């Protein structure tokens, strides 16, 4: 058992599953000798060789499409897209193929691939390196969208993603890659997909979030706790398919809902959560739902990025707004 950062937990999960199952193949740009631009695959090529940890040519549609082909033919590819802003050329292969290979062939072929995508802002990165495109993938039936928010969940959810017989888009919140260490045992035990994780219990308001925003949200909850306000903080973890039940249950208890995400608000993933609650738990709501999100603008270059991203203050005002009524 060792204290690991989130990215170290990713590396550990990869190494662990590669050792356990030789069908697991890591591929992507710079994942080999260099160990990935974030070092998520550091040491893997040395340990498992250049066939199992492959540097690919620079082409994201290719990385996704080749992964589909490998996955359909008995391998378990875990592909890395270098940054959020470069995942878009891969969308065609994900939506038209990975997501529907099982449906199209009535189960004759399926596509057990994982596409790892470091995402989000807050690290003062260059242009096109700070996007949060999770909502696009969440709207694709047939793929799972999984987002860890702690080292332990990164380890357990990535194992689950690799073992899952269907495609998983695994968004890694790069802003918290190295934020905190947590004891993570290399137990080989996967965590459950398709369920939310309740990070903190509370009776006054339900706050639903994922990725790096869990940190801002937990900090806000801490602050509000000193005022006697109890926030129930739910990390969605698997964004799609969504475990609405856990959220509904919580809202039925608290009567208030705040959703926090970094991506632009409109047509973002928070909208689905709000919609589900408006459909299934409207009579429990004692105040309007609040979304605390990025603005409906282009993620700015880094001098303005912290003005773009929801921070503790914005989360707190969102929560307070629901408590007014």
């Amino acid at each position, binding site marked *: 058992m060792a204290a690991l950062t989130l990215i170290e937990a990713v590396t550990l999960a990869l190494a662990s599953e590669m050792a356990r199952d030789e069908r697991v193949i890591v591929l992507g740009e710079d994942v080999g000798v260099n160990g990935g631009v974030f070092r998520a695959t550091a040491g893997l090529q040395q340990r498992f060789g250049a066939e199992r940890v492959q540097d690919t040519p620079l082409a994201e549609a290719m990385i996704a499409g080749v992964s589909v082909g490998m996955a359909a033919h008995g391998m378990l590819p875990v592909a890395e897209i270098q940054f959020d802003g470069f995942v878009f050329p891969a969308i065609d292969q994900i939506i038209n193929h990975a997501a529907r290979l099982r449906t199209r*062939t009535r189960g004759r072929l399926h596509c057990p691939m994982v596409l790892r995508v470091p995402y989000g802002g807050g690290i003062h990165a260059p242009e096109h390196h700070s996007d949060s495109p999770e909502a696009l993938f969440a709207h694709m039936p047939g793929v799972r969208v999984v987002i860890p928010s702690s080292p332990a969940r990164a380890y357990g959810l990535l194992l689950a993603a690799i073992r899952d017989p269907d495609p998983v888009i695994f968004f890694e919140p790069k802003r918290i890659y190295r934020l905190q260490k947590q004891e993570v045992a290399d137990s080989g035990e996967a965590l459950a997909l398709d369920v939310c994780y309740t990070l903190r219990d509370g009776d006054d308001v339900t706050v639903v979030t994922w990725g790096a925003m869990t940190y801002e949200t937990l900090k806000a909850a801490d602050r509000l706790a000193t005022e006697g306000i109890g926030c129930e903080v739910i990390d969605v973890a698997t964004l799609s398919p969504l475990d609405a039940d856990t959220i509904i249950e919580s809202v039925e208890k608290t009567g208030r809902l705040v959703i926090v995400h970094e991506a632009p608000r409109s047509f973002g993933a928070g909208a689905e959560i709000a919609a589900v609650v408006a459909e299934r738990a409207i009579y429990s709501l004692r105040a309007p739902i609040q979304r605390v999100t990025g603005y409906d603008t282009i993620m700015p270059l880094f001098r303005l990025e912290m003005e773009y991203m929801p921070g503790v203050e914005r989360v707190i005002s969102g929560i307070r707004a629901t408590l007014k009524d």
Partner: protein
Amino acid sequence: METIADFEIKYSQFLDPEGEPQETLPAFARDPEELRAMYRSMLLTRIFDAKAVNLQRTGKLGTYASCLGHEASHVGIGAAMRPEDCLAPSYREYGTMLWRGVGMHEILLYWGGDERGSDFAGPRHDFPFCVPIATQCLHAAGAAMAYKLRGEPRCAVSVNGDGGTSEGAFYEALNMAGAKQLPVVFMVINNKWAISVPLELQTASRTLAQKAVAAGIPGLQVDGNDVIAVRHWVERALERGRNGEGPTLIEALTYRLSDHTTADDASRYRKREEVEAARKLEPLIRLRRYMNAQGIWDDKQEEALTRECIAAVDKAVERYVNTARAPVTAMFDYLFAELPASLREQREQAIRLDGNGAGH
């Protein structure tokens, strides 16, 4: 200035349109059984194809993409491949698929709007039809990567059209396969048209085989109406792949004698004379002529085979038209290995509303 690299693109034809051999035929082509088997497959494909067009015209099939004129290219690929190789077709390669064991009724099911057509009996590892142009080239490269990693002596074969060579995915696949020396054969069926877009508008490239140069892999052009040339060179390319010598691009020159699909009207954009000229080069005539000349095929055999093919096609059509619609639950039951809890209610709803004017 010094020359630092040079390339040449070769062309191969064994039988000319008159059925005259232009070179010494490869061994398989000296075996009458082999020739008859390929001829049978081409004729079956043609009869099947005509029937399918007819089914569409009479409202019994959805939009259908005819393969008229492509029989030699398609059957040649099928005949060259081994069962354990993997096909990643586009949407037109019935000749290849039938050779490999896909049922005619399954092809009809697919174009009849039923996913079960892609759950075919043929090689269970083959990819299904692929409509998004050239995306299948990457799947073939991926399958080839799997074979290479496991050390299996197998190859993947993707097939796309002349239009498909304009898509980024095509080049990305070639380049990747070259960089990793994957056991894959990229077939480009150059039938001169991508719906209404003629080859000259598609690319300034004189041949499509030369696109291989960009990836540093061998490329060659064959007469796609000569089943012997297609089979021979695909066999050689597959051997190269199995021997670890990497990928090959083969351009098969043929012509789309039909409309693009039954939803298309080619008379809007191409001249009848062009089609008539191309018809003279079509693949069945020349093989029949050659077999006739060799005394290994006669009119009686032709007649018997035609009857046999028609009967087989009719049987498949019957099976197709008698296949009941799949249950609505099928929409849900193959989405994931297990139905997520969140979808149970929608599934129930679909059952409840089935046939009940739901989408009507």
